[in-house]
């Protein structure tokens, strides 16, 4: 499964997602936890629900009001949250979406990004618990 994700990623080093650590990704996700949930249907936080975000259309979570910066992303080529798109965004959200309401400064460590993307994918597939 994760090897398949890697093939689509492009920006991630070959094998990085295949070797990603879902459990470590859950630790990395603590940096996202205050504003995001991976529990299906849990809304009302300041960020959109991330259950199923891998492969989801950008700025498409129901019942969430996105910033203009995120609303602009599809027109800039970021139509779907592929692993590559998530990798670029998580590296530096401000560089991908200038003016984003999310103040998170980003994850410079590519291993940390691979781990958290693997965790998000696992959460979608029911292989991770929040």
């Amino acid at each position, binding site marked *: 499964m994760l090897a398949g994700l890697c093939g689509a990623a492009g920006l991630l080093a070959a094998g990085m997602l295949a070797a990603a650590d879902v459990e470590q990704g859950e630790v990395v996700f603590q940096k996202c936890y*205050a504003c995001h949930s991976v529990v299906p249907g849990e809304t009302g936080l*300041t960020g959109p629900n991330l259950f199923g975000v891998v492969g989801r259309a950008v700025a498409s979570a129901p019942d969430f009001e996105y*910033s203009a910066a995120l609303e602009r992303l599809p027109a800039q080529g970021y139509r779907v949250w592929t692993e590559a798109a998530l990798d670029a965004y998580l590296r530096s959200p401000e560089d991908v979406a200038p003016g984003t309401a999310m*103040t998170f*400064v980003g994850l410079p460590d590519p291993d940390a990004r691979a781990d958290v993307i693997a965790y998000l994918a696992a959460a979608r597939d029911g292989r991770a618990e929040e």
Partner: protein
Amino acid sequence: MFARALTGTLAAAMLAVAAQAQEKVEFFAVPDGARPHDVSPAPDGKVWYTAQRQGALGILDPATGEVEQVPLGEGSAPHGVITGPDGKAWITDGGQNAIVSFDPDSREVAVYPLPEDTGYTNLNTAAFAGDGTLWFTGQNGIYGRLDPDSGDMQVFDAPEGRGPYGITATPAGEIYYASLAGSYVGHVDSDTGAATVIEPPTPNQGARRVWSDSQGNIWVSEWNSGQVSRYTPDSSAWQVWRLPGDDPQVYAVYVDDQDIVWLSDFGANALVRFDPKTETFTSFEGSAPGANVRQILGRPGEVWAPESGTDRLMLIRTAGE
């Protein structure tokens, strides 16, 4: 633990001066990409801000527009800054998962990491209680206290888990915090550390920040509801006002020395002045779209608001109110 501050300087230009109502509005540029999150007037007339994206404490001299930034450490991403009774800057550093202080005289940066077993807490904001203890919030669901003299630190699990955001001390030294995800106000017993949940009248209102007025009433900025509310501890009474406009999103609240309430509204891209006596709102437009003011703080005659989206600090001179 202690590191000598390395500093650089940057001459920054005052961008614009505009007059509106009886207040005078000015904007000051900070380094591109600094993304100033919080601000606090310093004892020497300068102004501190957290350069969240550059891992530094910024120091602006309003008299000249000059800015320098003091690096806070590896991985730093500072969120809040306040000025302590000791004259130091006290910083909640989410990137380092630590409380950080900066001494403007010695230029020493001191890092107080949270206990290792606490895990990542997403540190948010701090306030000093009447006894000199620093209380702080972590958005992942904690609040805690630090004795600045001994360095002793305690961390408490917050009621209802994630959410603790803004925090304030009343003139009597009582500590209150807002839980954004929990949509409540917490009152902390400074002796036991226990927090009592106080529910605002509007469900799921998204209490984001809190500030005390001179009488110890707690003002709350409500992110989800677009309201500002006031809690009176003596009577447990609430009063609520909705901000003008179609879709107000109220992020920050601060009450100045004249008990005028200042709010930031992402929906209107404006700083908003609210006079509780006349129940009137006055709006001050951001310097550019997406100004995103996330905190407000001041000193007599000055209200400061960092525009995190434009890399500018907004100053409203209020003298004469």
